[in-house]
Every structure is written in C-alpha cells, then in structure tokens.
C-alpha cells in the first residue's frame, strides 16, 4: 500500500491535524472529529450540518465555511460518523434557529444521523433532514436501501448554504434542500479500485483491460464490469443513464464532474470535452459546471458525473459568495 500515512488506524486523526494547520478559518473539535467554522453560527441563521465517512475529501470538511456548511462530522475512512459525532456537530452549529442534516443515502449514514437527530431533539435542537439518493447506477426500490448519495450532495450544500446565509428559516431551507436533492442524478465509473488504509489492499481487483461502471464512492463494486473503453465511450456510459433516468428533457442544469482521487485533471478535462456535446445533444442546457476533485474515493482512478436540474433561484444561490477550502468564489 503506497500512501502517505503512518499507522493506518490514525489516518483520520492525523488528517484533521493537517486540516487545522492549513485552514485557520476552520476549527477542529478533535475529540468528536467535527470540522466547524472558526466563527460561531450567526444568531438566527439555520445551520447546515453534514458528514460521512472520510476518504471523500474535500467533501465534507472542505465545504465548511461561509455560504456552505456550518459543521461536518468526519467518520472513520468510509465509515459514517457515530451519533455522538453528529450530535456534537449539531449542538455546536445550532444558533437556535435549527439545523439541517444533509445525509447521503447509505444505511450507516441514515441510521447514525437518525439517532443523532433524536438525541439532538431531546436536547431541544430543532432538526430537519434531507437524504441525497442520486446515484442512477443503483436500481431504486422501496424494498432495498435505495440509491446512494453522491455528487448532488455538493451542489445541494452550496445552494442551500447560500439560502441559509440569507436568513431563511429551517422549513424553507429544508424545502429547498429536498428540491435540490430530487433534481440531481449521478453516475460513476472506476478504472482502478481504491485501497482502504486499514485493509491495506485494494477493495476489488480490476484487470488492466477492464473497468467498473456504476461503482460506488466507497469502492463498492459497480453494476457491471466492462472492457476498458475510450474516453468517448466512457462519456456515453455516464451521460446516457442519467439522461434516461430524468426521462423528461432536463433543460437548465448545474453539472459536476468529479475525479475520484487518482485521476489527474488533464484526464478530467478531456473526459468533460467528450461529455459536453453529449449533454447538449440530450437537451441538458449546462448553465454552470465544475470539474475537479470534489467527492472522491481515496485513491480510486475514475470519475463521477452529476447533473442537477436548476431553476433560476438555484442558479442565483449557486452564484452567491462561498468561502470554503473546496469551493470559493465571490469573496
């Protein structure tokens, strides 16, 4: 395992030390492994709290800051945070105006945030939750755990963060959050497996001439394994299922192409060059686009495409200032 680590058991704790050294504008609660804005939440402002397993950097800690999250609970690598952690994040972030939990739809995340919300409400904190379940690689069904949450999370945190910054109340914030969550679809592909530090070996074996289509961001194997394809073909494998899942013409949209950790920017640029015309052909009117590492899967080579249908309000909030380690503009 070739990684910059010391003892694999210490990866999260030590990464947090680094984040604190790099970002004085953030505050780390080391005991609870919570990343907060250095400044406490403005009285009256609804707080946005997210979190999840680590290994997806910059998500979530890298999206804490003005215009986006108020706090993020960092679980162990690929392991959702515990209720205690989420509770600590929730209590620290609450200004009295209530807290929105932004949860990616994984059983662990849902259960731990659920317990945390119960505990927080018992302590008198108003909590609303939104669950992001945007991964079209997973067949949706009420009998299963449903779809995974991927890139729409980032878009949601940005847009809803801007609304909270404007002073909207918890109900309004939660309504918009659910609207954004419902408007997003994602699809990913892996060229290599990631290696969980504590496991010490790749989560799956992928021969030199194969790739995983529909892979999860925790190295969960995808829905199918296909021969290694050109960027042009990969673009189609990402765009088609998303467009198909939307059904209706998409219209104005915010698009995110995220590298999965080990895919360099030049490949992401090239891949997006193939994706853009396919989106246009399919009636996706790309209004805003981000390409880079935003939601990763440790050292996995691959990419994940997210398309979020966006109305004027969402675009306006997208353009509002944001000052976080992972997203920054307007200030």
């Amino acid at each position: 395992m070739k990684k910059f680590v010391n003892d694999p058991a210490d990866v999260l704790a030590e990464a947090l030390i680094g984040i604190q050294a790099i970002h004085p504008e953030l505050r780390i609660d080391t005991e609870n492994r919570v990343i907060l804005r250095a400044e406490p939440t403005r009285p009256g402002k609804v707080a946005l709290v997210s979190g999840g397993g680590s290994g997806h950097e910059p998500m979530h800690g890298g999206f804490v800051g003005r215009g986006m999250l108020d706090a993020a609970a960092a679980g162990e690598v690929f392991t959702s945070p515990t209720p205690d952690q989420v509770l600590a994040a929730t209590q620290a972030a609450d200004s009295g105006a209530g807290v929105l939990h932004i949860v990616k739809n994984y059983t662990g995340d849902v259960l731990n945030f659920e317990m945390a919300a119960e505990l927080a409400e018992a302590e008198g904190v108003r909590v609303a939750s939104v669950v992001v379940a945007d991964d079209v690689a997973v067949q949706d069904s009420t009998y299963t755990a449903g779809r995974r949450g991927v890139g729409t999370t980032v878009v949601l945190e940005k847009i809803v963060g801007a609304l909270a910054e404007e002073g909207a109340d918890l109900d309004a914030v939660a309504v918009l959050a659910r609207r954004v969550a419902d408007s997003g679809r994602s699809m990913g592909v892996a060229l290599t497996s990631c290696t969980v530090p504590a496991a010490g070996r790749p989560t799956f074996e992928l021969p030199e001439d194969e790739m995983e289509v529909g892979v999860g961001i925790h190295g969960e194997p995808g829905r199918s394994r296909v021969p290694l394809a050109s960027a042009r073909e990969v673009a189609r494998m990402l765009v088609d299922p998303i467009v198909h899942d939307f059904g209706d013409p998409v219209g104005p949209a915010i698009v995110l192409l995220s590298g999965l950790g080990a895919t360099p920017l030049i490949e992401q640029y090239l891949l997006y060059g193939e994706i853009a015309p396919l989106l246009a052909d399919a009636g996706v009117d790309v209004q805003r686009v981000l390409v880079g590492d935003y939601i990763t899967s440790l050292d996995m080579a691959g990419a994940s495409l997210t398309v979020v249908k966006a109305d004027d309000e969402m675009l306006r909030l997208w353009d509002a200032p944001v000052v976080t380690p992972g997203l920054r503009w307007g200030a």
Partner: protein
Amino acid sequence: MTGAVSTADLVTWIRAFRDAVQQHKEELTALDSAIGDADHGSNLARGMDAVVAKLDTVPASPAELFKTVGMTLVSSVGGASGPLYGTLFLRMGPALATEGTVDAAALGAALRAGVEGVVARGKAEPGDKTMIDALLPALNAWDAAGDDLAAAARAAADAAAAGRDATEPLVARKGRASYLGDRSAGHVDPGAASSTLLIEALAATVAA
C-alpha cells in the same frame, strides 16, 4: 454454569466476542470487500476494543453491562453495523432484571428484544442478506432448545452459522451490498458472519 450466568460470565462472553472479532478481523473485511466497502472487520474491532476498555470493573448487573456495551458500540463504530449492534445490546439490557443471574429463558427474551430492535432500526426482513439472517434463526433455535442454557446457546450458534452460510446465494436487498443487485449473490454477508461469532462466543462461554 448450566442453568444461569452471572454478570461476570456475560463479561467473559463479551470479551470472547472481542477476541473472535480480532481474530477474524481480516476475514470480515475481506467479506465486506467483496460486496461492500472493506471496513466491517476494522469497524467491529474498533468498537469491541472500546467496549473491552470499559470493562475493567465488572458492571453492577447484566442490564448495566449491556447498556455500556450498546452505548460504546453506538459511539465508536459508526457505519451501518454501529447503530445496529448498538441497538441489539441497548435493547437487551432493559429486558433483564437489574440483579442476580440470568437463565436461558431470560437471556433468550433479552436476545429477542435486541434482535427486534435491530429489525426495527434497520427494516431488514429475513432473506435480505443481513445480520438478521444469522440472528433470527439463532433466536428461534434458542427458544426451541428449552431450559438448558448451554444447549440453547449451542443450538443458537449452530443455527446462526447455518443462517450465515445461507446468505451466500442470496441477492442483498438491504445495506451496502444491495447496490450490487444480482452481483451480490455468491458471497457470505459480513454482518451475518460477525453475528455468528457473537452467538458462537456465547455458546463457548456458557459451555466452559
């Protein structure tokens, strides 16, 4: 130790479970690599180490013990298994008397409360390819075995193992493995494997 166990015996069980998890840590993670995210072994190992660190002094009662175990698992494991194993123990405690020893019937009732808690939290049904598929058969075997604690535990452990093995051909409908659809078939569920270690540790403890 045929009819009943003391709190100290139950601590021995919990310690034995920790040892079994440590011993099978890599195996559990390997199972989770195949259909999940390669962390079930380290998750449970971290949690059970935290639990054992709290057991230097034996708790006042079984109820107390299980509360400590459950709270510690909830606050140190994370993932899907943290709240689920945590709930299992948190629900076992209140089902028990706060004093004295525990016999087969009492422990069986506590286990039932725990497993029902897991079902309530996780909404898994039998055959969904989860820890439930080891725990439910174990419970049923326990009840069917009657008054003898060692026999009940032995029957439960065997049933858990059979339930665990039976998860192999199943297509997962809950948890991370469900994302794989049909490709989840052909692998044993990691949570069913760790639950079997739990019941097996109990059987070994009460047989000793």
